[in-house]
């Protein structure tokens, strides 16, 4: 009679055990091109950009969004703290929007932080996130927020 609730408890315990946990302790920097009109961005503004609620900057330049790979620890922290979802969930949602051709301005996923820095240094409308230590002192990009 009491076996079913016990099985259910074990079942849910297994679910919680499978839940992902953020592992990175390094500070993350949200960066834009040095010519970007935005001096600082709040987390909510960044989330709105990364969910396509904002498509262009205040001077009319189209936003170009950069992401790291789904399994990158920096993305895991960014995704959890800013988008409040696991990277795999965000990737699924973008995939669904792309497969239905409903994505207005999907992010471009690249393999390394140095590529993000290069692209942002080159593209006026670009935004991305990297570990703070990889971008500190770089005059070609501007840090608009940091995430601990």
């Amino acid at each position: 009679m009491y076996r079913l609730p016990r099985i259910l408890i074990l079942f849910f315990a297994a679910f919680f055990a499978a839940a992902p946990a953020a592992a990175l302790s390094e500070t993350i920097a949200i960066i834009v091109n040095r010519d970007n009109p935005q001096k600082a961005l709040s987390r909510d503004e960044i989330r709105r950009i990364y969910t396509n609620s904002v498509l262009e900057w205040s001077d009319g330049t189209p936003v170009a969004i950069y992401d790291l790979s789904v399994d990158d620890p920096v993305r895991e922290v960014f995704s959890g703290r800013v988008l409040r979802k696991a990277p795999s969930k965000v990737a699924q949602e973008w995939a669904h929007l792309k497969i239905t051709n409903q994505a207005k301005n999907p992010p471009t996923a690249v393999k390394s932080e140095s590529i993000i820095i290069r692209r942002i240094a080159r593209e006026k409308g670009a935004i991305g996130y990297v570990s703070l230590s990889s971008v500190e002192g770089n005059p070609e990009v501007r840090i608009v927020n940091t995430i601990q």
Partner: protein
Amino acid sequence: MRRFLIGAILALTAVLPGIALAEDQTRIDRLEQELRDLKQENQEIKKRLDGVAAESEETRDSFGRISSFVNISGYADAEFYLTDNDSDNAHFRVRHLSLFFIKDIQKEWRLFSEIEYEDAPLVESEHTTDDPDTVQGKLLVEQMYIEYHPELDWNVRAGRFITPAGLWNIYHYPPYVPTQTRPLMVRRIFPQVSDGVQLMYSFTAGESVVDTHLYVANGAGNPGRLDRNEEKAWGARAHLQQGSHGLGASVYREIDNVDILRNAFGLHYLWDFSPFRFQTEYQYRQNSPDTGSDFIDRGFYAQLTYDIGKWTLAARYDWYDPNGSQPQADIFRYTGAVNYHFAYNVVGKAEYNRNVFEDSTEDYNEVILAIVVAIGDL
């Protein structure tokens, strides 16, 4: 002499370990320095490799932008279906192989097509009739349109597109929805696809984003080049997204091939509060035949999902009334599903459906076990 020897031995015993220790220390210092140098060298190599990888990816990206490649993606799924419905039996089903071909022709022009191969039918040139032994599935051009998108916030599409209505009709692809069965009313009140022209425009209103679609099409039941009447269908959809809440409405109007004026309306609501996601839709259609009485068909569903780690749990309530003037025609369905995401593009599903009719002797249960994959780097 003896005393001298003893003294010398004692002195050596005292000094030699010191010399040995000093040598050891020097060796350790040297090793530590070597280790530091190696670490630095390693970091420099890593940096250089990263730079090479970045350059390689940049080159690939530049090449990709200027190349004439067609982006191919899609999905595929296979099922095992089990039921106690007398008119059906347990079976394996090779359900979908759907391929998307996307070609960015110019910066502002794109070709989008979806070729769906459902139930893997055997199609041979000598068996082009409806011979049930050979043709049991469908090979369908589900979407094919040319898109013009000069800005991120608007585009025009001409060709065949998924009818923009509600939520499920647009966002229904198996790798990304929790169930293999769709809600009962979906595709019955609003058509699955439309052949025509569609305008999408998106704008912000304060903190909210509004997506709108407006389209003119041949109408349901007119796939391909055959439009069997002069009338054209038109429809519209609006969706307002405010934070985690989404609210919208859809309309569709047509006079079909048997002169029935059909006016369909839909409302939808979405609450995405991770890890929970709730979505519900209500659709209603007024059918007015040229001769005879009007009748309505309508439906509703509410679905709640919960994500935990690699698992998704889902529950859905479904109702569809195909004819409001016939009180015994309603169908109800209660669905429970568990998904396991092996990866973000590979999912295993277990689904249970309880189908309930006004005449309880018709009730039946279904269990569907499925494996679904999304193809390509989406």
